[in-house]
């Protein structure tokens, strides 16, 4: 798998989105599905910069994909601190405005809009794979 390397800063998000939109379109997804994939990837990369690296321009983000007949898989690698998804609170989406936190929304959106999400952590890299099924 070929990986595209992007500097780990928020300015990269636009370029990462353009890349993802192009490859998701080539995979045959409709416009709304492409938007959901764009969102999941944007949230994942924002989390990497904020949590894994703890700031901008600390390390790179590597993005690759596989396009198979039944599913499209995006792989996102970083070399920051392992990120424990279970440490992120599940947002309360029905609380009143005054109590609304909006934290944890990114991870929630990734889970809602992708079909499979898997985090793998090793000594020097974190690997996130996100799968979108085709033909739904």
């Amino acid at each position, binding site marked *: 798998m070929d990986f595209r390397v992007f500097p780990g800063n*928020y300015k990269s*998000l*636009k370029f990462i989105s353009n890349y993802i939109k192009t490859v998701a379109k080539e995979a045959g997804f409709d416009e*709304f599905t492409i938007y959901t994939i764009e*969102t999941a990837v*944007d949230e994942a990369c924002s989390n990497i910069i904020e949590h894994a690296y703890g700031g901008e321009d600390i390390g790179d983000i590597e993005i690759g994909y596989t396009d198979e007949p039944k599913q499209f898989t995006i792989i996102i690698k970083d070399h920051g601190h392992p990120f424990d998804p279970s440490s992120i609170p599940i*947002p309360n989406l*029905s609380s009143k405005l005054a109590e*609304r936190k909006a934290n944890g929304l990114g991870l929630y*959106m990734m889970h809602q809009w992708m079909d499979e999400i898997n985090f793998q952590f090793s000594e020097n890299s974190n690997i996130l794979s996100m799968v979108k099924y085709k033909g739904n």
Partner: protein
Amino acid sequence: MEVEVVNFKRSSIVNVKGRIDSSTSPELLRKFNTLIDDGTYRIVFNMNEVTFISSAGLRVLITTQKKCKRHNRGELVLSSVPENILAALDLAGFLPLFKIYTTDIEAVGNF
């Protein structure tokens, strides 16, 4: 992202073009804060040309709505919301928190 603010006597319309992500959302928050600091609490956010909103952008909406509604002094309302953006607002459970209008005229008329 480009931000344009149109001021009226009793309200302001904020037009945004482009992406609202972790890179651009701080600037949008600053624009909203400037309006609020200047005493404008009735704000219409025209989202017609917003192409993307991430959770960072959604946080700006919540923060701004809380400030506008303080002491019942005003409200942040949305207008011309594209379908993809509406789906994101719905997924995040934001629909009960924001009035959504088809046009700016309807939105301003609400105030």
